[in-house]
C-alpha cells in the first residue's frame, strides 16, 4: 500500500503555503461564525471581536509556525480543518451561552489554549514517533490506571449518571479521554510485535480464518475491560470506543477478517448482556426506538434535537434565529443538534465532511508511513476520531442508540479537546516522518561503494 508512495523517487512537497492559506480560511470560518452569532442574537457585531479574533489568530499562527519549524513535511490539511471545527464549536457554544446565561465558551477558549500549547509541546519534544514504541507497556498501564481513577473514592465523581470524572483540586478531568491516546500507542506497540503470531496461526472454518484459542487472550482482555467500563462507569460510549478501536487495529495489523467475526460476535454478546442486565442500557435503547414515547422525560433530549433539525431544514434558521437551547446539554453531546438547527443540513454536511477529511488524512498518513508502528498508531488515531464522530452523530440523528461521547473539537469539554489536539499533533508528527524524502542513495555507484570500503580499511 505504501509501496506506491513513500518509496524512492517520489517526494512529497512541504505544502506549508497551502496550509497557511487554508488556515486563514479556517480563521474566517471561526471568526465569521462568532460575528454571525453576535449579529443574529444581539443585532450588533460583538464588542470583543478584535480581542477574540486576535486570540484565535495568535493560537492558529502559533501552531502554523511550530509546524513550519519542527515538522515541515507534515500534512497540510489536518491543522486547518481542526482549527475551523474548533472555531465553529466555540461560536456555537457562545451562542448557547447567550441563550442560557452560562460561560462555557470562555472556559472552552481556555481549554483550546491549553490544547494548542500541548500540541506545540508534542511536536517540539517528540521528534520521532518511533520513540513511543519504547513506552508500549508504560502507556498501557497508565491508560488502565487512568480508566480506573474515576472509580476511586474521593477523587472519582459521578455526573449525569456516568462515573467518568475525577476532581483534582479545582479542575475536573475525564481521564478516559487521555487514556484513549495512550491505548492507541499501547495497542500499536503490542500488535507490531505480535502480529505474525496473531495473523499466521489459526484454522479455517466456513471461509473465515479463525485465530488460535491462545491468541484470543488480548481480545478477551480488552472485551472484559470494555464491559468493566460499561458496568462500573456506566459509560456506553467509551466502552464501545475502546473495543471498536482495538478490533480495528487488530484487523489492520493482521489483515485477517476472522478477528472482525470474533470481535463482532463478542460485541453482540456484550451488547445483549448489557441490555439484559442494566436498566440504563434499556432506557437508551427504548428512547432510540421511540423518543416521543417519553417526551417529557428520558426522550426529551433526542426529541428536541430532532425537532431542531427538522426546523432547521436545508439551510438552517441562521445563528440566533433558532432555539437550540431547548435541547438539554446542547453544548456537549448535542452540539450537532444545535448546528443542524441553525446551519441546517448544508452546515451539518460541511461539518461531517470536515470530519471525513480528518479521518481520510489520518489513514493516508498510515498508508504513506514507512514503519509498522507508525502505520498502526496513525490508523488507531484516525479510527478513534471516526468511531467517536459516528457514535455521536449517529446518536444525535437517531441512527443508533445514543451513547455519551463528545463530538471531537466541537463540543464543550476540556479533556476531550486537549486530547484531540494531542492526537492531531501525533498525526502531524507521523506524517512529517512519512512524507519527508528518504536520504538520497542513488548517487552511490558501485565504484563509490568500493572506494568507501577501502577507506574503512585504511582508517584501521
Amino acid at each position, binding site marked *: 500500500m505504501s509501496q506506491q508512495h513513500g518509496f524512492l523517487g517520489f517526494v512529497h512537497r512541504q505544502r506549508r503555503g497551502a496550509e497557511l492559506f487554508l488556515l486563514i480560511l479556517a480563521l474566517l470560518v471561526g471568526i465569521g461564525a462568532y460575528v454571525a452569532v453576535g449579529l443574529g442574537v444581539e443585532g450588533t457585531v460583538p464588542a470583543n471581536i478584535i480581542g477574540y479574533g486576535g486570540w484565535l489568530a495568535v493560537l492558529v499562527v502559533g501552531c502554523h509556525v511550530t509546524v513550519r519549524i519542527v515538522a515541515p513535511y507534515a500534512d497540510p490539511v489536518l491543522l486547518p480543518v481542526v482549527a475551523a471545527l474548533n472555531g465553529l464549536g466555540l461560536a456555537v457554544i457562545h451562542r448557547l451561552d447567550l441563550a442560557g446565561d452560562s460561560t462555557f465558551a470562555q472556559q472552552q477558549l481556555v481549554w483550546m489554549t491549553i490544547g494548542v500549547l500541548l500540541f506545540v509541546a508534542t511536536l517540539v519534544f517528540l521528534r520521532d514517533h518511533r520513540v513511543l514504541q519504547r513506552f508500549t507497556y508504560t502507556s498501557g498501564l497508565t491508560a488502565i490506571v487512568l480508566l480506573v481513577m474515576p472509580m476511586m473514592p474521593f477523587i472519582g465523581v459521578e455526573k449525569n449518571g456516568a462515573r467518568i470524572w475525577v476532581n483534582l483540586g479545582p479542575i475536573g478531568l475525564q481521564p478516559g479521554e487521555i487514556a484513549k491516546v495512550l491505548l492507541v500507542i499501547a495497542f500499536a506497540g503490542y500488535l507490531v510485535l505480535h502480529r505474525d503470531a496473531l495473523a499466521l496461526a489459526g484454522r479455517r472454518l466456513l471461509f473465515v480464518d479463525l485465530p488460535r484459542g491462545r491468541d484470543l487472550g488480548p481480545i478477551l482482555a480488552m472485551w472484559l475491560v470494555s464491559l468493566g467500563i460499561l458496568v462500573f462507569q456506566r459509560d456506553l460510549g467509551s466502552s464501545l470506543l475502546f473495543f471498536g478501536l482495538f478490533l480495528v487495529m487488530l484487523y489492520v495489523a493482521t489483515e485477517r477478517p476472522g478477528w472482525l467475526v470474533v470481535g463482532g460476535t463478542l460485541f453482540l454478546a456484550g451488547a445483549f448482556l448489557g441490555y439484559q442486565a442494566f436498566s440504563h442500557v434499556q432506557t437508551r435503547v427504548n428512547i432510540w426506538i421511540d423518543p416521543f414515547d417519553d417526551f417529557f422525560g428520558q426522550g426529551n433530549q433526542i426529541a428536541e434535537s430532532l425537532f431542531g433539525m427538522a426546523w432547521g431544514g436545508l439551510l438552517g434558521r441562521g445563528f440566533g434565529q433558532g432555539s437550540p437551547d431547548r435541547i438539554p446539554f446542547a453544548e456537549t453531546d448535542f452540539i450537532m443538534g444545535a448546528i443542524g438547527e441553525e446551519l441546517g443540513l448544508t452546515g451539518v454536511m460541511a461539518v461531517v465532511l470536515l470530519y471525513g477529511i480528518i479521518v481520510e488524512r489520518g489513514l493516508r498518513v498510515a498508508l504513506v508511513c514507512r514503519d509498522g*508502528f507508525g502505520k498502526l498508531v496513525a490508523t488507531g488515531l484516525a479510527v478513534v476520531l471516526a468511531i467517536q464522530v459516528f457514535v455521536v452523530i449517529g446518536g444525535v440523528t437517531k441512527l443508533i442508540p445514543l451513547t455519551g461521547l463528545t463530538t471531537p473539537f466541537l463540543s464543550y469539554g476540556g479533556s476531550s479537546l486537549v486530547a484531540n489536539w494531542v492526537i492531531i499533533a501525533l498525526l502531524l508528527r507521523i506524517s512529517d516522518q512519512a512524507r519527508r524524502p528518504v536520504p538520497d542513495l542513488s548517487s552511490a555507484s558501485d565504484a563509490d561503494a568500493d572506494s568507501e570500503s577501502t577507506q574503512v580499511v585504511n582508517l584501521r
Partner: protein
Amino acid sequence: MSELTLFLIRFAYLAILWIFVLSALSVIRTDMFGARMPAGSAPRAERRAPKAPRASKAPPKRRGSPTHVAVVEGANTGERADLDDAPILIGRGPDAAIRLDDDYVSTRHARIAASGDQWFVEDLGSTNGTYVGSARITQPTTLSLGTQVRIGKTILELRK
C-alpha cells in the same frame, strides 16, 4: 435587524463554510497528484531523454546489470525471480514473488525495487529484520551484483 440582512448573513456564512471545505479538498487533490521527483535524480533524467523506449519501472538494460534475484542459501536455494517483475516482494505470504519457507521470515518481509538504474532492498517492517552484509537495514539500501541480503535464515543476491 431586518429579515433580509439575517438571510444574507446566514447564506454568506454557509458559503464561507463550503468554500473552506472545497479548498481543503482541492489541497488534498493537488497533494495527491502534485508530488514530484527529486531534482536531478535518475528518473527525471530518463524523462528528459525521449530516446528511452518506455518509462518502465525496471532500469534500462545494459551489459553487466542484474537480471534476476536468486536464493543462494536456505530452504529455498535455487529459487529465483526476474527483475522485470519489479518491485519484488519477498516473504512467507502467498502474494510474495519469492516465497520462503523459513520460520524467521515475516509474511511480507522485504521488497526489492528499482530507482533509476539502481536496485534497492527495503524492509517492510519485518519482525527479524533484513540484513545487508552484517548490518540490519533501516531504510532502502542500494544493492549491487552479488551483494548478499539475509532474510531470516535465507540469503539472496542479485545475479546477471
